[in-house]
């Protein structure tokens, strides 16, 4: 059940064993992913089927929502996932992320042992339901203020960002291969997120889990370079700041 060539200390291995004992025996990572992406794909089909004769100006909502989602992802990670808060659900999010996900992987060992471990990275399916409900008011307000297309494009973008988040984060926790090493954005995030898993800096650096835009914007990246350099950095360690440790 564990990696044969695991690259870490006994503490991490003991935690991984303990965590796996808490998971129901029937858990199936493929079923977990199937449910999340089936809901996501059906929702996306439903939203897209409502788009009619989109004008160019209506597409402006897509990049704006994309950047706002990126900042939201950064803020949730920095201020909820890594800081214990008292509003409903926040403690559970903190526990699941800081006390489970970050104990399961460190910067030296970022890999799952198999699909039975996927649960430690993929959110439970109810997270997608909550994010969908959070997006519905935006859909209604934008449809009332601007047009139906703007509302539907908004919710298309928020749902897409959620599905991209799950995919990108998953890619950070699988073994290296040709695709991951050479795929733009994916390779960047793999290095970015592995650096974040260093327990000494996890509350300060590299909070984005899709594209490191907000990390660049709010200077919480371990890199010293511009936005494009951040996005296409890949595995390079040439621009790492000296004061991140």
């Amino acid at each position, binding site marked *: 059940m564990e990696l044969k060539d695991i690259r870490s200390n*006994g*503490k991490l291995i*003991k*935690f991984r064993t*303990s*965590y796996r004992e*808490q*998971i*129901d025996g029937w*858990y199936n990572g493929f079923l*977990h992913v199937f*449910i*999340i992406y*089936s*809901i996501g794909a*059906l*929702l996306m*089909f*439903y939203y897209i*089927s409502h788009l009619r004769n989109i004008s160019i100006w209506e597409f402006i909502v897509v990049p704006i929502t994309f950047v706002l989602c990126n900042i939201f992802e950064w803020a949730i990670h920095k201020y909820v996932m890594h800081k214990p808060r008292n509003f*409903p*659900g926040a403690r*559970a999010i903190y526990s*699941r992320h800081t*006390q*489970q996900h970050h*104990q399961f992987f460190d910067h030296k060992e970022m890999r799952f042992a198999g699909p039975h471990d996927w*649960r430690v990275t993929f959110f*439970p*399916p*109810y997270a*997608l*339901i*909550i994010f969908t*409900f959070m997006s*519905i008011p935006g859909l209604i307000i934008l449809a009332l203020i601007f047009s139906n297309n703007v509302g539907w494009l908004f919710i298309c973008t928020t749902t897409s960002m959620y599905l991209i988040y799950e995919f990108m984060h998953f890619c950070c926790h699988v073994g290296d291969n040709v695709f991951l090493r050479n795929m733009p954005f994916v390779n960047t995030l793999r290095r970015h997120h592995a650096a974040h898993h260093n327990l000494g800096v996890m509350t300060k650096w590299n909070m984005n889990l899709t594209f490191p835009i907000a990390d660049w914007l709010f200077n919480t990246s371990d890199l010293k370079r511009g936005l494009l350099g951040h996005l296409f950095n890949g595995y390079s360690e040439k621009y790492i700041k000296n004061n991140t440790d």
Partner: protein
Amino acid sequence: MPTKNKIILTFLVILTAVLIIFFEYVESNISHMWLIIMVAFLMIIGLWVFPEAKGKITHEK
């Protein structure tokens, strides 16, 4: 997630699905009605089938 919250979320999923199905029925979009039924079904399965890890995970010192 506590059972109480799951019940609330399940209720919200069903309520929203019923409302959307009603609007789609008015618009005669039968395929959309079935799509929403499938989404609601998958959401409820997802809510109840994947419980959080049970018990407290021990941290070795």
